[in-house]
């Protein structure tokens, strides 16, 4: 499975992705790589992985091809799986966390490392791996090639005007040059406290809503204490909802 989660900042992507990755790892023997491509990373907390300070060596990629047709690839002789093993941090349930790294100093200095990250994720083997991406909030990254690895792109949105507006913008950008395409994009409604929220979201943004996660105080409590939701409240309604989301997405993106 190759799936990316996007949406407005604060919509609750990281908690859903962290829980999703660990439940996926428990249900399947193939390795799960959780990808945090936010320059202000936070997925580690939701996974229950100690904070990491990784940053890819830019030299893992190289530019190849003729003058007019140059493209970036993983350096010859490097095995993408080996690179992941080297740079990823293993967390609970065997989930590997691959982190873009914090934005320090001028973007020009770390740009090559970011590019290496994007290329590496794109070149990971098609089979035998589960890739689950937690992309930064907003509309920029998903359509600049960072969701390119995903077979399914899931927009996480609350049933609030700003969150639904972001979802509608994301839906409209799906068809742009480096976007995932409309047919690969679905939505889930998060922090739902009204049974009609999922329908409202679907009507507003035009994306098919494949699941809902309820407003659940145990999510806030887990975030506040810095503990993964799955460890803090394994029997919470939110974990139950992510479990059923996993079943739905497994059927959508085999």
């Amino acid at each position, binding site marked *: 499975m190759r799936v990316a989660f996007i949406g407005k900042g604060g919509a609750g992507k990281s908690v859903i992705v962290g829980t999703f990755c660990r439940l996926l790892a428990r249900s399947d023997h193939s390795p799960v790589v959780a990808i945090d491509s936010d320059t202000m990373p936070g997925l580690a907390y939701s996974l229950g992985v100690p904070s990491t300070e990784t940053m890819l060596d830019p030299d893992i990629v190289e530019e190849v091809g003729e003058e007019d047709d140059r493209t970036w690839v993983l350096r010859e002789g490097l095995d993408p799986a080996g690179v992941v093993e080297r740079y990823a941090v293993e967390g609970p349930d065997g989930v590997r966390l691959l982190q873009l790294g914090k934005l320090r100093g001028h973007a020009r200095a770390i740009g090559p490392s970011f590019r290496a990250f994007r290329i590496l994720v794109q070149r990971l083997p098609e089979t035998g791996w589960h890739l689950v991406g937690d992309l930064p909030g907003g509309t920029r990254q998903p359509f600049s090639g960072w969701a390119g690895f995903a077979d399914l792109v899931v927009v996480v949105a609350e049933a609030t*005007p700003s969150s639904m507006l972001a979802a509608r913008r994301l839906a409209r950008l799906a068809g742009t040059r480096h976007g995932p395409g409309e047919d690969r994009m679905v939505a889930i409604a998060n922090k739902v406290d009204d049974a009609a929220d999922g329908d409202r979201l679907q009507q507003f943004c035009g994306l098919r809503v494949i699941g809902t996660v309820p407003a659940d105080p145990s999510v806030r409590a887990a975030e506040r204490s810095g503990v993964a939701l799955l460890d803090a409240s394994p029997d919470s309604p939110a974990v139950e909802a992510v479990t059923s989301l996993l079943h739905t997405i497994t059927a959508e993106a085999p």
Partner: protein
Amino acid sequence: MKIAVVGKGGSGKTTTSAILARTLARSGRSVVALDCDSNPNLGLSLGIGMDATEALVSLRDAVGDEVEHARTWDEIVLRFGADAPDGVRLAMVSKIEDPDLGCP
């Protein structure tokens, strides 16, 4: 006075900015609220509604590539901004329409 509000996604930057802008305007200052997010929602928090927020033209598009006859800041904000409650003038810096490959 120039104030920039920054922080992690979902921490309340937009709401804080909107309340700051309207509070300053109520105290008699002339305020421009600048939405620098590529997913611009400041209009919602200021209270101009969804349609007006979506209808805003980004300053980046408004300025164009013209250097010689470049418009002044006042002209641009006057022409491409929108009026928000308490006399705040809202302007949006950029909005993503057709993204390029790369930048995270």
